[in-house]
């Protein structure tokens, strides 16, 4: 069966050591982002905040959700989801930004 299914692969068991490191990393990042919010960085504040959020999300997806150990197809699928989300955001906002009337 699996001969024809290019996506089949060894089922990988992630150990508590990995989980613990990720947990600590996430906690540190949370502290960082909260701290960063109090430093005045102007335009960089949201960028830093979102950057850290993305980093945390990636960690969770890769390790807690085992994408790191799954097949290409899974990675592609997850990628596709976030890509479509970005399409929605960017293409809509680009319209608002490029309005010559209205608020923007």
């Amino acid at each position: 069966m699996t001969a024809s299914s290019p996506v089949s692969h060894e089922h990988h068991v992630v150990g508590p050591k990995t989980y613990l490191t990720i947990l600590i990393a996430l906690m540190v990042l949370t502290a960082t982002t909260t701290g960063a919010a109090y430093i005045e960085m102007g335009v960089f504040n949201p960028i830093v905040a979102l950057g850290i959020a993305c980093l945390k999300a990636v960690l969770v997806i890769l390790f807690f959700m085992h994408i790191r150990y799954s097949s290409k197809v899974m990675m592609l699928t997850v990628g596709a989801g976030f890509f479509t989300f970005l399409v929605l955001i960017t293409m809509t906002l680009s319209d608002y930004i490029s309005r010559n009337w209205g608020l923007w």
Partner: protein
Amino acid sequence: MDSHAIATEHGEQELHGEAHPAHLRHHFVTVDQQRETASFGMWLFLLTEIMFFGGLFMAYLLYRNWYYDAFVASSNTLGIGLGTTNTAVLILSSFTMAMGVYSAEIRNRKGLLISLSCTILLGLVFLGIKSVEYHEKYVEHHIPGASFSIEDFVHPTDKRDVPLAPDMAQHAQLFFFLYFAMTGMHALHMIIGISILFVLLYQAWHGAYVNGHTSTIDNFGLYWHFVDIVWIFLFPLLYLISRHPLH
């Protein structure tokens, strides 16, 4: 309701699998195929969830840019202490959930029971803190609608707040609506998740999931982590719009 539907779907599938000694549904060939299929389906469902929240994020980004001052002022009324605590709690619950998946895979019933209960507990703590925050908003008349009061924004008590003009202050309602919509939608997912967790706990108590067939736990884990991810984005967006410097 959607996530509940699919999740219990897996639950029932599992029960059905229990009937088979091989936990193999008739239309699958190998256990591997069945597990991968289930997790792939779960992932696709999570993609729909991404897009579902996507609409809200879209609205949020637009109005945050239109009414930045109002959003800053409103964001500063949120208790950052509680917010950060909640983030930590949720991340911790994600960890315990992951440990649950692990113990299921190494067929450790005790570990599974413990981690599931911890996850439930942390989830409840999160919801508790959230309800405290909601209650604060209610007391401060920051619930959008008829009872909404722009007083705190026009005549802020905190010296560091810049007073807003009434029309801008009105737009704080948009922030609070989006705040309640997003965190509410997220809390709804938490509640659904916790109720499923109780089912899983009950079944695990009766010895399920530690017999090598873990896909239900795996998939629920995916769902729980996804809820965590949503919050990971909600936290900076809602709580951390240019906080006042400490001093």
